[in-house]
């Protein structure tokens, strides 16, 4: 199931990237740190964008970005130079890194789940303790990929809030003060911190409790009585 979902992500991600190539070319260019408009687009596995020299250092598959976008290794991709400096995201390296981390996590999940499928097929999945350990931690990976992708998507669209139509600086409310924004930001940080602690506490309890026994769930009256009693007992 997870393997299926992970592989499906590959296709959904690919079609999203094509949408972005068509509608938000600056963002696509920023994802790959692609500056030169006449050059073919390379697909980086990992790397670092030197924003001063407008170059990327890293390992890439030449022409792969062009291929994924246009099914043609030789077709150039509009680079960041195509657009006026005022219409480009400033922190290209940040967009590049968050985007590549997201893709890397996606690939890792595909690898992990396929590996698990292989062991399952061989009937040895639950003997692979090391893999089970990784999966315990891997619960966090999709969430991280989600957040990272969100960062690269939002920052990559800057300075626009609606691409090509509305600048972020023009989209601010004129009557909401900075103080009010601070108020809400701090308030929600506190609320979510509290929620997180509660979540961990209750989730931990639920995990330790384990799945319900069949006998126990069938015995409804007994169960509800126990609940009511435990609630009334003075501590």
């Amino acid at each position, binding site marked *: 199931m997870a393997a299926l979902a992970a592989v499906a992500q590959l296709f959904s991600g690919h079609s999203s990237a094509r949408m972005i190539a068509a509608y938000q070319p600056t963002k696509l260019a920023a994802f790959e740190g692609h500056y030169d408009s006449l050059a073919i687009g390379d697909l980086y596995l990992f790397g670092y964008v030197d924003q001063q020299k407008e170059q990327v250092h890293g390992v890439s598959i030449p022409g792969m970005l062009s291929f994924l976008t246009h099914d043609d290794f030789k077709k150039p991709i509009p680079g960041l130079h195509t657009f006026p400096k005022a219409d480009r995201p400033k922190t290209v390296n940040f967009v590049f890194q968050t985007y590549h981390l997201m893709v890397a996590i996606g690939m890792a999940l595909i690898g992990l789940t396929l590996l698990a499928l292989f062991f399952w097929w061989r009937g040895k999945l639950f003997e692979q303790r090391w893999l089970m350990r990784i999966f315990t931690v891997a619960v966090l990976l999709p969430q991280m990929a989600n957040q990272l992708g969100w960062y690269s998507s939002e920052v990559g669209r800057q300075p626009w809030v609606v691409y090509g139509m509305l600048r972020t600086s023009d989209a601010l*409310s*004129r*009557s*909401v003060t900075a103080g*009010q924004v601070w*108020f*809400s930001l701090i*308030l*929600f940080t506190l*609320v979510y911190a509290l*929620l997180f602690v*509660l979540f961990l506490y*209750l989730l931990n*309890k639920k995990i330790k409790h384990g799945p319900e026994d069949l006998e126990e*769930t069938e015995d*409804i009256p007994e*169960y*509800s009585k126990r*609940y*009511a009693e*435990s*609630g*009334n*007992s*003075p*501590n």
Partner: protein
Amino acid sequence: METFLNIDLRVWWFLVIGAVFTGYAILDGFDLGAGVLHLFFRKEESRRIALNAIGPVWDGNEVWLVIGGGALFAGFPEVYATVFSAFYVPFMLFVVALIFRAISIEFRSKEPMLWWRLTWDISYTASSILIAGLLGVLLGNLIQGIAIGPGFVFQGNTLDFINPYSLLTAVTTIALFSLHGAIYLSMKTEHRLYTRVRLMVKFTSRMFVLTFVTLSLVTLIYIPEMADKFRDYPVLFGIPAMAMLSVFNIQRLAEKGRYSLAFVFSGLTSALLLGLASLGLFPVLVPSTLDPQYSLTVYNAASSFPSLKIMLTIAAIGVPIVGVYTTFVFWTFRGKVKIDEQSY
């Protein structure tokens, strides 16, 4: 200008949004009311029954608020922008209260400790009161008007919203929701708890009549514009008259023990009161206290006609679907509450 059945599309949107917010007030009204009354139940079992009476429906009821917000954005984006910016702080508090109410309901019965349950019970009642109160404050300020300047930009500050009139509407809203909630609980409870709930219906209905009469008098004295339309078209006096009759009918039916019918009338009272307020304002949506020309109206705050048309079609499909499943849930969970292991 485009019309549907000879009525301006913008007026249609006014009606749609009015209907959705009325639906919200009726539906979330009773579960908020049940929350306000929660701490008045002393025994653990009573509290669990009261909580599980609204258990299957409270979150579905809040969907109507989401639809209302969405519809407001689609139909009258200028109102959405101005009101949400102006009421930024109250709305943030509102959202926090919604969060705390939801987790109180979900978390309270997850642990047996007395302090744990008491904490969530208090949080549940406090957030319910805060939500009902903030809705009342919002309504009070929309009736009085807010400091809207040129370009529909709000020029006042948050503290302006706390004034005698808005506090009065807040108390009235809390009283109405409590009454509505008490009547709902009376349909859901049995035995000694039912007897207790009956006393609550009695008490809350008195509170509501008291606040409602005060609010009506204060409105007529201090905001006489609200009554202008009624003087011009005397037929409209039917609405406040019906509201009055409806309020007294609740008491009459409650005394007879016909709570299902009383519940219908407490819902009708909410609808009539909101109808009264919006009719008093119409075609203005948010009056400006600085200059009437800056007021947001049905005509200057609406989306373009093509947007209104598309969105009206969507609303015409979507709102009935929500209406049907809401009815379905209520039908499924009809009757008295029984606690089982799936309960909150």
